Each structure stands twice: as structure tokens, then as C-alpha cells.
């Protein structure tokens, strides 16, 4: 049974190894708490623009690296041995990456996106579900130190010179990295959208007696043929 109301959330603890198996994902419920072992990579707009818009192939095909993409960039720095240390990791907001997801899933076989604050259920149903992918949200979101502990090593980094530390593709080794919260399930439902329903019940009262400003803004008025006073 999938979760259809925020109060049904059970917050079950689940441990997965990356790359993940399709069977790992099908029974995950909205609000479950996930911890990861294994290998993942990081990729955000720098990766999407370079690989999908400019058509540059990564040095190693991503599907050979993992099938888990973390929308983040670590606080990383070169160490004395020519490698890198990663001390803190925090995700970046995923909503702005929707336009690349379909091509990205097709190109890489990615099954699990980890990020900040998710996307909307329309995108999950249209982009994620056909690829068998789901979305895990980071917690907080600033649990950088907690997640930093779960990163045990940097196996590789792609496009460091081209994209810089904050956008490079980092291949990370994990031990018990988490917690993450299941935000979209195999059907493409969204935990945040269930939360919003509950919050919306309070809005009318909060806005009581607060009229619209005398000068509106475009955005509130969508027709540019209208004036705003």
C-alpha cells in the first residue's frame, strides 16, 4: 500500500548498497529513512549542461560508475598525497534540474536521485517512473558534517579543471551515508506534496485581514497587457 496521507508515514529504516538493484526501490514508502553504502557520483547543472547540452561524454561512462546521482558538491580540498579530502556534504535544490532528467536517465541508467527538496509529482510520474527511478531527499538540509562522516573516500573526480570544485563530478565511496528520506515512490507520489496539503489547511486563517498590496507585481498578474495599480 502506498502512502496517501502524511500521517500514514512510518519512517522505516532501510539500508541499501550502491549501485542499487531495481528490487531495492519498488517497496520503499514515502517517509522511509534510507542509509547508503557503496559508490555514488555527484552531478548538478555543470554535469547536465556539459554532458547533455554540449554533448561531451564523461571520461568514464556514468553507468559504469554507479546508478545513484547526488545533487551536491562537497566541501573538498586537495590533500598532501595528491588525493582529496571531503569533510562536509550538502545537497543543492533539485527542482531546477527537471528539464535534464529524462535525457539523463536514458543516458546513464540512473535509478536514484538524491538531492534537496525534491521535484513535483508530475515530473516524478513523467520522468522518474518510466525509468524506474525514485528520489531521496537529504534531511535538514544542512547536515553537512553528518553526511561528511558517511563519505569514506574520493575514488575519482571528473572535469575538475573544466567545472571547478563546486560543479565537478565526484565519485564517492560511502559507508552508512544517511539518513535520507524517501520523497518519491515507485508510483511517483511526493511526500512534500502530502505535507503541503496539511500546511494549506492553516493558510486561510494566517492571511485573514491581510489584503493584497496596492501595487501588484508581474507574476501576480500574468497578463503583461494589464497594468499593476
Amino acid at each position: 500500500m502506498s502512502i496517501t496521507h502524511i500521517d500514514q508515514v512510518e519512517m522505516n529504516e532501510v539500508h541499501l548498497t550502491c549501485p542499487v538493484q531495481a528490487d531495492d526501490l519498488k517497496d520503499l514508502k514515502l517517509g522511509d529513512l534510507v542509509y547508503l553504502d557503496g559508490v555514488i557520483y555527484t552531478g548538478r547543472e555543470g554535469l547536465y549542461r556539459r554532458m547533455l547540452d554540449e554533448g561531451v561524454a564523461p571520461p568514464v561512462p556514468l553507468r559504469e560508475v554507479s546508478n545513484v546521482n547526488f545533487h551536491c558538491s562537497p566541501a573538498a580540498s586537495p590533500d598532501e598525497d595528491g588525493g582529496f579530502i571531503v569533510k562536509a556534504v550538502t545537497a543543492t535544490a533539485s527542482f531546477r534540474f527537471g528539464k535534464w532528467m529524462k535525457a539523463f536517465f536514458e543516458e546513464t541508467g540512473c535509478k536514484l536521485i538524491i538531492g534537496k527538496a525534491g521535484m513535483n509529482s508530475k515530473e516524478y510520474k513523467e520522468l522518474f517512473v518510466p525509468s524506474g527511478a525514485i528520489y531521496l531527499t537529504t534531511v535538514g538540509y544542512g547536515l553537512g558534517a553528518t553526511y561528511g562522516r558517511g563519505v569514506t573516500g574520493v575514488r575519482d573526480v571528473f572535469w575538475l579543471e573544466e567545472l571547478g570544485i563546486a560543479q565537478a563530478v565526484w565519485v564517492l565511496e560511502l559507508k552508512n551515508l544517511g539518513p535520507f528520506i524517501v520523497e518519491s515512490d515507485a508510483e511517483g507520489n511526493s511526500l512534500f506534496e502530502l505535507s503541503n496539503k496539511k500546511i494549506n489547511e492553516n493558510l486561510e486563517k494566517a492571511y485573514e485581514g491581510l489584503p493584497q498590496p496596492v501595487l501588484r507585481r508581474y507574476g501576480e498578474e500574468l497578463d503583461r497587457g494589464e497594468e499593476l495599480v
Partner: protein
Amino acid sequence: MASLSFLEDRQAGSFPPAATGEVPGDLVLEVGKELMSRAAIGIPPDFKAAVKDMAEEEKNPLSLFVLNQIAQNYEIAEEDGRPMCGDTGLPRWYVKMGNDCRLQGGFCLLEKNLRQATAEATREIPLRPNRVHPITRADNNNNVGIHAPEIQYAFEPEGSWIELTTVHKGGLFGTDYRMLFPADGIPGIKRFFLDTWVEFGRRGMACQPAVIGLGIGGCKDTTMRIAKEAACLRAVGDRNPDPQLAEMEEELKNLGNSVGMGPMGFAGGSGVVDVHVEVAHTHTGGMQVAMHCFCFASRRATARISTTGEVSFRSDPQWFTPYYRREGIA
């Protein structure tokens, strides 16, 4: 594995050695780096206590889980010496000087050292080099660049010391500005506050629990500046000395939490840690407002360096003073 060379801070200039009675440049650099580290790793005690209090009151299981994770993350950051958040924000500096203070090399050496402290701390802590060129997206990999980091100055009439405060604040969500008018009145301010809070609080984009700074009046840059300073440079529980504004702070805090939007936008009562309001005299026809949310990785650290070389650190910037607000100066 690829290597990376960090760009040198190219700011030119040679400066005479420190004279007696001047704050030495080396000390500014050393203290600056220490502040960067303290801010990135150690949550200020006022904010930590506020999150603990919220966790004791929170009834919603998802929100409570998040609050407990946040509290644990503060501990892990300090135990391991890791930045509490991997998005180490856009480091910036607030500098305050007593009017009798003298600096070795003047303001240009001060700025050189603050830029260098930012670059070196970015590599050594390490911080994420977030600062990129807005069009080319090129990253100097050291959080230093064009107009970056921001350095804001203030002065006090007396004192032979300089105070340095660094703030590491994320830069994407939880901020807005709007031109309101006297006809909009207090209800207009409240509506702007709620609109911004609901817009950015959903899904926790504002990384709440947050301290919210609200600027009212001035002109657009002033409004934005005092709103950000209200969010970042006043301790939790601090109230504006103007009783009417202090009351507004309490009222807005309660209004924000009445939405029932906790951490990550889950249902709950733990969203707004505090609201700080600052005002500036403005155009007779206008009442502009601006809002900033400072997230639960509420990173700031302050040090005072005296011209005798004494250094003292503290977590409360004490930025807003009667002189800074120009209270009573007609």
C-alpha cells in the same frame, strides 16, 4: 587524479611594517582565518539552544526527527572539526572600528588580509568554493573574486579596536524585496512576510528553522542590507529597542509559526526561530520591505583585536548599537 592550483589573491601593494599603536596586518590574517573556521564548524550557542527548545515542543514525528538530526549534526561538526553544512555559503565580512583605531597598511591591507583569510580558510578547512563568475561560471576555487567577499564597514565613536565578524550564509532561497506604500500599512508588511515565508518555507527551501530578518524603509539597497544584518548579526531572543518594533518581532514570529510549517516544510511548529526587525528612514511616499532567512546552519563568529594586540572571540556580533542605528541623532 586531477590536480588543481589555487589562484593567488592578486591584490597588489606593499605596506610599511606595523607601528606602535597599530593593529598588525598579520594578526588580522590569523584572526580572520580562525573566525572562518569557528563560523563554519561551531553553531552559536543561542541558536543551538533555540533548536533544542523547539525539539522539546515539537509534536510532529517527521519534524521532530529532522530537529534531532540537526542537533546531532551540530555535535558531529564540533567533534570532527567539519563544517556543519556542506554548502558553506558565501563568506562575507562585517568590520567595525572604534574611531581611535589605527591599522597597519590602512584599509587596503585590511582588505587584502580578509581576502587572503577567506581564500586560505577555503582551502584549509576546507570550505566549498561557491563563488563563481555569474556568466562564465568560472570558479577561482577560493571564494574570492569580483566584489567577493563582501566587506561591510561600521564605526563607533570611541575605542582603539577593530572587530571582525564573518558570516557564512547560503544565497539562493528565503530572500525577497517589495515596494510597499503607507496605504499598505502594517497588514501589508505582514502579508509580505507571510508570502515570503510560505514561498520559501515549503519543502524547507529556506532551510528552517530560520532566523528571519525584516528590513523596513531606507531605499532598496538599505532595506536589503538591514534585513540581512537583522537576520545574521542579532542573537536569538534579542529585541529591537523600539517597543513598537519589539512587539512586531514577537507578532511576526507567532504569525510565521501559525502556518504550521516546520523543518523541511513538514507540518510542525518549529519553523521560525526568531524575527528581527530593523528600520531606516525612508521616502515620505514609500514603505519598502525586505526579508532574509538565516538557516539553521546559522554561521557567524566575531573577534575584537585591540591596537595593543589583544584578541577576544565571541559568538554575538553586537553589530547593532545605538550609534550604528544613529538613534537620537536628529
